[in-house]
């Protein structure tokens, strides 16, 4: 298992909740190199045990992102369930690597534009994604 420092052109996944879990699953499927940043020690240890490159720490801190190799990373997926935290991580990541590709999660519709203005290339809102899916399904019968 490569350490975060050895990785290059990788993706940093911040937060291993439901969203982060699915992102990791997809990256594993497509053999995209990645490292997870997880604030929960028990969860971080569990991921390490599973052979998933993981940095234990707070992703809002520059030090943690540097430890995850932000300067050499190609992209960052910010997936925590706290919008303010996501914005903070985004700004920190952008200040450490201006060319990084950023995809972030927004739990509230109001912050979507703010996250885009701050430099997010893509903003995913779980409820919006789900309502789109549900509507497509319901429209079939209409």
């Amino acid at each position, binding site marked *: 298992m490569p350490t975060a420092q050895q990785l290059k*052109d990788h*993706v940093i996944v911040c937060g291993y*909740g*439901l*969203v*982060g*879990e*699915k*992102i990791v*699953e*997809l*990256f594993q499927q*497509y053999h*995209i190199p990645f490292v997870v940043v997880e604030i929960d020690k028990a969860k971080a240890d569990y991921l390490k045990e599973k052979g998933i490159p993981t940095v234990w720490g707070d992703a809002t801190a520059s030090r943690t992102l540097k430890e995850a190799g932000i300067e050499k990373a*190609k*992209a960052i*997926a910010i*997936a925590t369930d706290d919008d303010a935290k996501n914005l903070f991580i985004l700004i920190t990541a952008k200040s450490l690597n201006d060319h990084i*590709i950023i*995809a*972030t*999660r927004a739990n*509230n*519709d109001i912050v979507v534009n703010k996250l885009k203005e701050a430099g997010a*290339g*893509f903003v*995913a*809102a*779980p*409820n*919006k*994604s*789900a*309502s*789109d*899916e*549900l*509507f497509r*399904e*319901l*429209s079939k*019968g*209409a």
Partner: protein
Amino acid sequence: MESPEQSEDTFNIMLLSVVIVVAILLVSLAILWLITKNAYLDAYFVLDAFFDAQNTAASSSLASLAFSLGVFKLSSIFAIVVIDNISRILITSFIFAAVIDYLRYANIEELINEARAKISRSHVVICGYNELSQQLMERLDKKGIKYVVVVRSLEKAKQLSSQHVLNLVLDFTDEQSLKKASIEKAQAVVFASESDSDNTLGALVARRLNPKIKIIARLKDERTRKKAYIAGVDMAVIPEYLAGLEMGDFIRRQMAYNK
């Protein structure tokens, strides 16, 4: 739906009214006894006054009866007529107060909503009100698809009513509740609450009530998916997974493009 405080308030008003009426009847009986010294006759007058409230002209016949029974003093007859009419006024007031009190606390809007839901056809039943259902409702409005929202809390019902959304305050895991939402005539039901177990249970009940209905459930835990499908769900959605897939896919495509 009547709250416990409202029920208690109504009960207290009713109880107080009954106590007042009984007290008035007893006082009336006592006054009549002082006039006529005939307890049987007095009891008859009072009960007649109490039960014969519909007949407004009855006071004169009561007076006639008093004459026929030998009560000839003008003051006695006058007292009988006055007490009789006061009793009538009080009884009428009591009934009127009870009706007004019922109307004050009965949620007329809820009754209207139940009637509207009952006649709904080919509609969508949305169980649970949160950001997901809110966004879905906006899309259904644009498409002109009719829907009924079933919620458990009065507070959420008030929010929906203020937006002129047809809503019912019910437990959507209950058969009778789903029947009130006219589930048998609906084209689809969306269980959008944040409880996987409630959504799965609701799906089970809905499937039993309408084998042809399209059932969609929102889930939080992937492990629940299989159980949801067994319960009769046609499509299960985990919002966080969809968002994760979208984010991962965006990064994958961007990385391939920038290579």
